[in-house]
């Protein structure tokens, strides 16, 4: 397995090269450029051309790419055009961190709710409870976040005045008891975005767990467990649950890669300074180096998380011997 992992990791630079060069070329050949976008209304074409020349935007794509690559391998992703004077790393990592915190918390909640409901649905397969659970979750998934957020803001933010109407202020606030004991409590800015993130997510986890639990329920060892007189709860938790969770590992892999990508709509509607909205703005205004850096980081995260999921899979399920088939 070690050799397999090394081999897979060796492919990473190749993948990143292809992704970065593709993105680079697409951005350069596409219409519009950041010099033009950030010029404002005083746009003397001759002056803009001189700026392009000074920034090296007039040389050919391969030369420009190599220039970018030289810096990128040293960890310098370049400078933003839209936010002049700031390096790309300064702009994207804090935002990625905000998106990642929200995404990770949402992920934990999705699994914590999705797994038991999936088991429950499988346990009651054939009765009305199963379709009721899955139906409700499907309904929640079908409501676009664009639709669900405004009423949440209106109700909890404006009418009841319980929650702020948007923004981000960290995960925890600290309540000081008698000035000495610090109790961390979730920050109120969290609730509305978390609702928006989690509601559509439950159903995919629940359905996956339900399907595999249904299969596992028919397995010999479950029948044996029941036959030897174990209580239903013990059967479910000790035998059905662990074996139903296998397919989830793959989902976790993808989902973890996804959390750093942020979410455009949630971040825009709630004014959260996350990476999703920022990436979108960068694309719209052709902020070349920002687009490139986020794409490359997303690609790297995707590859690594998938590899991690595969390794975990092999570790958990002895039947899967990753890498052995091709020697």
């Amino acid at each position: 397995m070690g050799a397999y992992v090394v081999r897979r990791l060796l492919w990473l630079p190749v993948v990143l090269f292809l992704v970065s060069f593709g993105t680079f070329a697409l951005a350069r050949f596409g219409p519009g450029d950041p010099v033009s976008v950030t010029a404002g209304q005083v746009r003397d074409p001759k002056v803009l051309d001189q700026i392009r020349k000074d920034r090296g935007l007039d040389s050919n794509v391969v030369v420009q790419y190599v220039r970018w690559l030289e810096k990128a391998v040293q960890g310098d992703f370049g400078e933003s055009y839209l936010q002049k004077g700031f390096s790309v790393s300064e702009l994207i990592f804090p935002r990625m961190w905000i998106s990642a915190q929200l995404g990770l918390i949402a992920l934990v909640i999705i699994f914590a709710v999705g797994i038991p409901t999936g088991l429950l649905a499988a346990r009651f397969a054939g009765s009305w409870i199963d379709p009721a659970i899955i139906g409700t979750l499907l309904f929640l998934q079908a409501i676009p976040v664009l639709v669900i957020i405004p009423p949440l803001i209106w109700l909890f933010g404006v009418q009841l005045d319980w929650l702020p109407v948007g923004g981000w202020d960290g995960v925890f606030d600290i309540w000081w008891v008698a000035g000495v004991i610090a109790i961390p409590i979730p920050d109120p800015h969290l609730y509305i975005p978390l609702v928006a993130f989690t509601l559509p997510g439950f159903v995919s986890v629940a359905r996956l767990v339900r399907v595999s639990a249904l299969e596992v329920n028919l397995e010999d060892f479950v029948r044996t467990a029941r036959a030897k007189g174990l209580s239903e709860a013990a059967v479910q938790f000790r035998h059905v649950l662990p074996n139903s969770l296998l397919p989830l590992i793959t989902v976790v892999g993808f989902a973890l890669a996804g959390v750093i990508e942020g979410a455009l709509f949630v971040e825009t509607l709630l004014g959260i300074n996350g990476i999703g909205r920022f990436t979108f703005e960068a694309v719209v205004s052709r902020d070349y180096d920002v687009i490139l850096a986020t794409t490359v980081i997303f690609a790297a995260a995707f590859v690594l998380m998938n590899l991690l999921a595969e390794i975990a899979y092999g570790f958990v399920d002895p039947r899967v011997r990753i890498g052995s088939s091709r020697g």
Partner: protein
Amino acid sequence: MSQNRLLAVLLGVLAALVLVVGGLSAVLLLGGKSEDSGSGTTTSSGTRTGGGDAKGALRLPGTDPVTLDPHIAGDATSAEYIVEIFGGLVTLSPKLDIEMDLAEKVDISPDGKQYTFTLRADAVFHSGRKVTATDVKYSIERASSKELASPTALAYLGDILGVREHFAGVAKDVKGVQVIDDRHVRFTIDAAKPYFLAKLTYPTAFVVDKSQIESNPRNWSRKPNGTGPYRLMEWRLGERIVLEANAKFHLGTPKLKEVNYLLSGGSALTRFENNELDIANISVNDIDRARDSKSDLNKVYKAWPQFSIAYIAFNNGVPPFDDVAVRRAMGMAIDRKRVAEVTFKNMLQPATGILMPEMPGYTPDDKTLSYNIEAAKAELAKSKYAGKMPPIEISEVGAGAEAGIDTQAFLELWKKIGLTISIRQTDFATFLADQDAGRLQAFNAGWIMDYPDPEDILDVKFHSGSPLNDVGYKNPEVDKLLDAARTEANANRRLDLYRQVEKKILDDAAWLPLYFSQAHVVVKDSVKNWFEPPMVVPRLRFVELAR
């Protein structure tokens, strides 16, 4: 046992997630608190308001500026912050009069080409260092240097002798800026131009601190050492910008001690209603509520005229817009008053010409071609393209499947005179690329005044030699009048020349002026003296907070 291993892995993942999120948050929370407390967010306003000290600081909506470097900023958002943090020799008053800022007086030579500024004895940077004539010269040379490649340098400083050579990299310094002594600096320009002082009110001509820039060339503008009424205390990207009053400000101590621009948080009006902001803009979706005398918003709602105009630009160089009859016919066929009323609920004022209300040279009579379908048909019949009209396409920025609501109304009106016009929508960057390359036949556009002088629109956008004349408009008579206005010393005669120019341009229908903008704003009762100037001017120091 594979099951135990699986459980171990899952529990491990879960534990890792909790640890990562919890641990890092705790670190950030405890470690970052000192940084946070800069604006007193969590301490004084509790957890509810999401930022901003509700008592001592004005809370404004905002977005990140593109840059706080005055010499390269070309957008209104950046300028709003820059005019509060920096200053130049001259500035604009809230009434848009040119006033002395770092200079206490200016002597203009009889031929109108030499401006000798005397610096104020008490003009200092935020750091306390005195502003000298050398700082002024350094600033003009930096702004117009080849290395900085400022998009605005030539437009605002290009009249100064030697700036163009310096920008091209052929001259080491700007010969038109001379240091006489510590407190005196002389500018020499290429011709007597009455609007020259007005141009110096723009950030490109602002004074910056040489020693700060040279010691930190890359990052100095994150904590700039300016001379303006406010100093930048904190800038957290996408989160907030905090300005603090400069008590030593030479034109008088600002009344407002602190200003917090809250950059995140979603809809400004919602945050205003939730008492998280003191000021918010009203969009067309909320205007009915703001105007309804029974609504809470109505009591705090106000509208101010703005120095900006929206128009349809005809590319005068390509068919069929090389024919004045086609342009005039299209102008006569639109009813901008009705469209402004129906589609924009009169949030925009129908344009009566090119110069906006309160601009020098403005006259209140409607100078646009009047709406008359029959006259428009007759005009179109005069065209060389009558009966063989090439396809017409108007470009606009947009991503929707349908055109802007006013454009749709215009399309219907143009159909009445037999013109079927199509709309092409592209994203902003593509639109600009096409516009710069002159590929657009006609397009929706706008212009915001940068200084309150008719030259900044009539000359800049319509003189055949201007690099910003992006519609290819050429009228020798107009050029002659504009040339005369450039150097006319008598203010009334000069404005009269511009009125003649405006009339000719409107008769030629070089543009199809649509609307003048207005700012629609709600302001909390506790904010005194708030105003929305028609263009960007320093204003925060006049505002007071009563709470």
